[in-house]
């Protein structure tokens, strides 16, 4: 098992998550992530070839609903939960395509 520290681009991850980090915060998170990776890296010591990959730990499958229409919200109620709206629309700061 490699003990090389994992290099993580904190600035990139912060940008993807739309987080504005100070330099101090970035350094703090980098250290914490390194710690996490070291912990998770223990898995590499185990033989998992015979264990099927899983995306869920809940012992359920095929939870589905029939294709039946149920009532939607009143528009005023839907819009009223948002910070901003205009006429029948939700309103956000302008985005460029």
């Amino acid at each position, binding site marked *: 098992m490699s003990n090389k520290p994992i290099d993580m681009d904190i600035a990139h991850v912060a940008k*993807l998550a739309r987080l504005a980090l100070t330099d101090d915060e970035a350094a703090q998170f980098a250290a914490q992530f390194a710690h996490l990776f070291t912990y998770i890296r223990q898995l590499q010591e185990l033989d998992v070839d015979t264990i099927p990959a899983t995306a*869920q730990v809940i012992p359920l499958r095929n939870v589905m609903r029939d294709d039946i229409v149920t009532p*939607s919200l009143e528009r005023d109620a839907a819009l009223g939960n948002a910070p901003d709206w205009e006429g029948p629309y939700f309103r*956000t700061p302008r985005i*460029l395509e």
Partner: protein
Amino acid sequence: MTRVLGAAQAVAYEPVIGLEVHVELATESKMFCGCRNRFGAEPNTLVCPVCLGLPGSLPVVNRRAVELVCKTGLALGCSIAHVSKFDRKNYFYPDMPKNYQISQYDMPLATGGAVTLPSGKRIRLTRIHLEEDTGKNIHGGGAMAAASATLVDYNRAGVPLMEIVSQPDLTSPDEAGEYLAALKAVLSYLGVSDVKMHEGSLRCDANVSLRPVGTQDVGTKIEIKNMNSFRSVVRALQYEIQRQTDVLRAGERVVQETRTWDEERGLTYATRSKEQAHDYRYFPDPDLVPLHLDDEIVAAWRAELPELPLAKRDRFLAAYGLSRYEADLLTGERTTAEFFEAVVAHCGEPKAAANWLLGDVRRALDKHGLTLDATRMRPEHLATLICQVRDGVVSGRAAKEVCEILVRDGRHPAEVVAERNLAQVSDRVAIEALVGEVIAANPESVAAYRTGKAKAFEFLVGQAMKASRGRANVELVRTALRARLG
């Protein structure tokens, strides 16, 4: 002779094209909630806590949507996954209120398969997966642009969306058009979508790169978006192939990017990416449990597949003695094909049924802005009309008039013929009288005919038909005229 070889000599390039087609599924309700799946409703009236991503709400998979994707996969020869799951595709853009779209990353419902073109060429598929559609952003224009805001309608957010990804097997813009038409035909036969490109229920992105003819090189891939019709897909690809050819011939390199098709200006331009990093950080959606599809359910879906367009076309060719052209047109849409067969079942005249459906019926539908689905004309009505023409009850010309009324009003032909007095006149005494009148009224043409002018005869036939409002039996008119003129 001096001639510089190399730089001045144009290298020939060939395009390598792949298509990504998004299809909104024709379910009653949305993918993960019970809001109605409908185009054109008032903004934000088909929304609920689930499709608005409100805290504490949980998605539940629409069983019918899974079935429709799997049936599409089976119809296209895909393998259906035994185990499949949903993943979150994360990005910040207000077309999804959750800041992620539920999609499928590494375990799609269907893989492999192919779309077969009319030529027989198979365009291989990579995969078909199921996801949710996004909301609609309304940008700028007038006061809103000044107000620097974007308005959002979430009616479409959460509508079941099937993505069909082809391999880069297409080698020309026209072939891309054929692929879309063939795929659309299969989808409409299956009834999985209403496949209306102008309403966005079928959307297409294209990937295109160039390579020197005859090589297996992989060129830089350009993605084109925003094409709103089959025709614009073909045009955008033509434009983009020419643009890339010009870039390469100028000795420059094609830059990998996404480009937007501008229908009005007929060109593509580089798009500003909505997520520059293209790092969607997919991970399994913890709110949704996996799907396990056993052989039994897949076999049941397979058994429910209808006859598909190409199989139907081949059967029409063999069973009805139609031309390839007629068979292609009749089987392009399931409603047309089924209408045709219902007409034939009633009157047993396949050739005439094809002629009427592809000719006068289609013209009348276009004229009145109708489709075969929307008209009240019944197949047995058209079959009756075809029999009436065959049996000489109405003339071909009068039948055209009747046909339009059938298409427009959905009435029985016998009723229309009686009401409009369009029954063909085959009574000898009446025809004799009619011919007598025409001869008396056109002495010059009679004289011309007698001096050997054949055209004059046709003129007299025309006059007789006109005088009878198209009702006279034209063969009897000809016989009577010949007899009288000697």
